[in-house]
């Protein structure tokens, strides 16, 4: 009986990447060994059993190439995913949490801008390198959603820098404190931002579609900033009433409704408008081979 491990190693040697070579050699050799044992148990003489076993592989070079392709792609996937999971995503999570704390405390507006920009840059890195490697929900909902949210926020900051010289108004508006909800905004600021939301919605739905998202996933990714705003309104107002004893929004429902309309409902429509062209299905319903 041949030494199957040596035989496999010898034939794969010029092609097989080192990292997986011994594992693959062991597995393939074990398979050949079982084929040989089966042939022998069926009564074949040694040389005939060896000959039959070797017919398992017509072309070792083709097999080696196939294995190298699969295994090296797997290696690169593991390396990149590891980097994303241990470096990029935790960094984004920490920065995002820190940014949210500053946002709620109304502190360090400049630092907040830097944080959101860093989050966006890191998210784009993740999307670019991991889109096809993360699970379907992450790549079609969460990542496009957060990219859209950050893009929408950045757009507001950019406009703020260009159009507004009082950088505090955005945050005080969001906090829905007495006196701030009614603070006026330049008309062009709001209209410009709203038009930008159309692009953000398109970006979210596009990224979701590229990540293999269903129509529902594309809708969620496109409208993500508005969904977050609805959620924030639902959280901030009761929390503010509970911890700050600020019942202004609750005792002025018409103003609260106006705030939600301006900062969540109308933007939601704009976002969905942008997402609409990417909601159409791109695949036919035929059975895939």
């Amino acid at each position: 009986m041949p030494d199957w491990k040596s035989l496999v190693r010898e034939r794969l040697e010029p092609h097989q990447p080192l990292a997986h070579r011994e594992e693959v050699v062991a597995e393939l050799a074990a398979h050949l060994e079982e084929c040989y044992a089966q042939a022998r148990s069926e009564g074949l003489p040694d040389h005939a059993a060896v000959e039959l076993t070797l017919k398992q592989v017509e072309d070792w070079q083709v097999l080696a190439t196939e294995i190298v392709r699969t295994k090296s792609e797997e290696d690169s996937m593991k390396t990149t995913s590891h980097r994303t999971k241990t470096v990029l995503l935790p960094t984004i999570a920490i920065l995002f949490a820190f940014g949210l704390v500053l946002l709620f405390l109304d502190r360090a507006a400049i630092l907040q801008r830097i944080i959101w920009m860093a989050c966006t840059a890191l998210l784009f890195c993740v999307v670019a390198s991991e889109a096809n490697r993360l699970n379907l929900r992450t790549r079609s909902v969460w990542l496009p959603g957060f990219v859209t949210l950050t893009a929408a926020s950045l757009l507001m900051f950019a406009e703020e820098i260009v159009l507004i010289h009082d950088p505090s108004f955005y945050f005080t508006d969001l906090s829905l404190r007495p006196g701030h909800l009614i603070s006026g905004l330049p008309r062009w600021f709001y209209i410009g931002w709203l038009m930008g939301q159309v692009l953000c919605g398109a970006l979210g739905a596009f990224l979701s579609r590229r990540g293999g998202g269903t129509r529902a996933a594309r809708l969620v990714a496109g409208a993500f900033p508005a969904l977050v705003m609805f959620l924030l309104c639902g959280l901030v107002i009761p929390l503010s009433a509970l911890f700050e004893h600020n019942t202004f929004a609750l005792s002025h429902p018409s103003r609260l409704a106006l705030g939600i309309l301006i900062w969540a409902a109308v933007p939601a429509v704009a976002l969905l408008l942008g997402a609409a062209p990417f909601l159409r299905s791109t695949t036919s319903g035929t059975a895939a081979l």
Partner: protein
Amino acid sequence: MTKRIRSKIARGSGELAILSLLAEQQLYGFEIARQIGERTAGALKFTLASLYPLLYDMEKKGWVEGRWQANQAGRDRRYYRLTPSGRKQLAPLKEEWRNFFQALNTLAGVSHA
């Protein structure tokens, strides 16, 4: 039929066969090939060269997971088992093949068993 289409059909049927088998129990490569040959009365045959690239590819996709452990004879074998993601693939794959055979049946009177 072109070689490319034949290859796709073979690959698709191979994936379905392996997923179906592993849905029942974890198996190592030789056992997968043996059981597929036995259960299909030799209609589907896997050689080493056709089986392992497919298995490694399915492992890369996260459908199956390989793990070394000793078999009944005490020899180390790499056992494959279905992952939750692989289990999710099974029903849609079956549906695709059902549609495929129905389409062929309509066209050429070819029906599956």
